[in-house]
């Protein structure tokens, strides 16, 4: 069972208080009608499925907030978590190690 740091509660808590919410930073287009079928497919279905650091979303039952995380999908180790709406942080070397 993972331990996850909630950036809103500023507390590190067991996975059972969280639900996974898929890949992060896939913004819904302001005007979907302007999207081609291919662009819309990418938005709906295409996922990075990264082997290694993966930008993803979780929701904490405690505060009810969705937030973002960078997790290594090989070790399942969380490299960082940050609030929804914050820009995608670039992966620093030390964080990766």
């Amino acid at each position, binding site marked *: *069972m*993972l331990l996850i740091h909630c950036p809103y509660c500023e507390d590190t808590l067991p*996975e*059972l208080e969280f*639900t*996974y919410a*898929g*890949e992060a930073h896939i913004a819904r287009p302001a005007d979907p009608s302007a999207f081609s*079928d*291919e662009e819309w*497919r*990418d938005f*709906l*279905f*295409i*996922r*990075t*499925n990264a*082997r290694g650091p*993966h930008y*993803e979303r979780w929701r904490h039952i405690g505060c009810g907030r969705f937030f973002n995380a960078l*997790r290594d*999908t*090989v*070790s*399942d180790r969380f490299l960082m978590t940050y609030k929804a709406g914050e820009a995608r942080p670039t992966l620093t070397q030390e964080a990766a190690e």
Partner: protein
Amino acid sequence: MTRFSAFSLLQQALNGHKGWREQWPDSQPKAEYDVVIVGAGGHGLGAAYYLAKEHGITNVAVIDKGWLGGGNTGRNTTIIRSNYLYDESAKLYDHALDLWDNLSQELNYNVMYSKRGVLMLAHNVHDVQSFQRHVNSNRLNGVDNRWLTKEECKAFCPPLNISPDARYPVMGGALQMRAGTARHDAVAWGYARAAAARGVDIIQNCAVNAIRRGPDGAVIGVDTAKGFIRAKKVAVSAAGNTSVVMDSAGLRMPLESFPLQALVSEPVKPIFPCVVMSNTVHAYISQSDKGELVIGSGTDQYTSYSQRGGMPLIEHTVAAICEVFPIFTRMRMLRKWGGIVDVTPDRSAILGKTPIKGLYVNCGWGTGGFKATPGAAHLLAYTVAKDEPHPLNAPFTLERFTTGRLIDEAAAAAVAH
């Protein structure tokens, strides 16, 4: 290759089994192949075998980053069935079932295909409606699947608890008698041995780092840990790692990889005569030839390549099994392990050509890949050889995610009201 038979076994027994030769050589890569298959699981090895046998294409390499059969082929709960809801799925899996039926003889390798019957339990009115729909559609598709009352379920599987006050009372079930289990390792080994005998190179412990494309965009080969290997046709059959491999060819996939856990109990004398699946409580159980209860669970909630998986899910799976089969609480878990399953948005496979010339893909089997092994292998071989899909896998395209023609086995079971 020594032909396997009771006679050869006896013969060898008398001379101390000195005469057995290796079942497949440890091949080193050649500079060029007609077809390179990435992933030496049952699907990839099988595809190589059918390429050689049915299409006369023998200059084939199957490349794997690890040992053959070391991925999901050797990590699953070996359930084989074809009683799927949508025609496309039912026909695809039934094709596999037909091949399973003769696989031991075909490969001269006993894969122990055991037609013990697969019983899918209905726990509420919605399940009943959904399974009736399965049963009826299967019947008209000529796929064996029939409805059992809860009493008939109990008679077919005595350890079953059909008490009405159970949290998830059994309201009946759908039984496919032709379905069952098989010895997973034997499938990989059998295909490997038969493919190697027809000249296929099986290259183990050789990671494929990238799929290389020429100026015209077509595939020209693969970069591997053992150097560049030229090939005009590359078929990717790498299960959980498909996204990563395809990405190297510049093709992003509608896939996510999740941990899937399974476990076995200590071996006991025969107690469990069939395979039972309960999608409502996410528990799948059968008893192996060795006597172990083989139990599968649902996927963990987060994507992962760790092949680990957490404790809570296993607790819920075991609890679900003990709720449906209360006599098993004093049985002991012997071993639990995890695999990585690649899942598509509609929970159906992708099997066919890609927008890239010479690149073919077989992925997205989710938790159901093992049962499809001979069928997927057979159809992948066809698609690669003919450069066009077989009618059976034609619906399982990448394009469906653009056009919206999904084959949504998951949604079809969607619960609401």
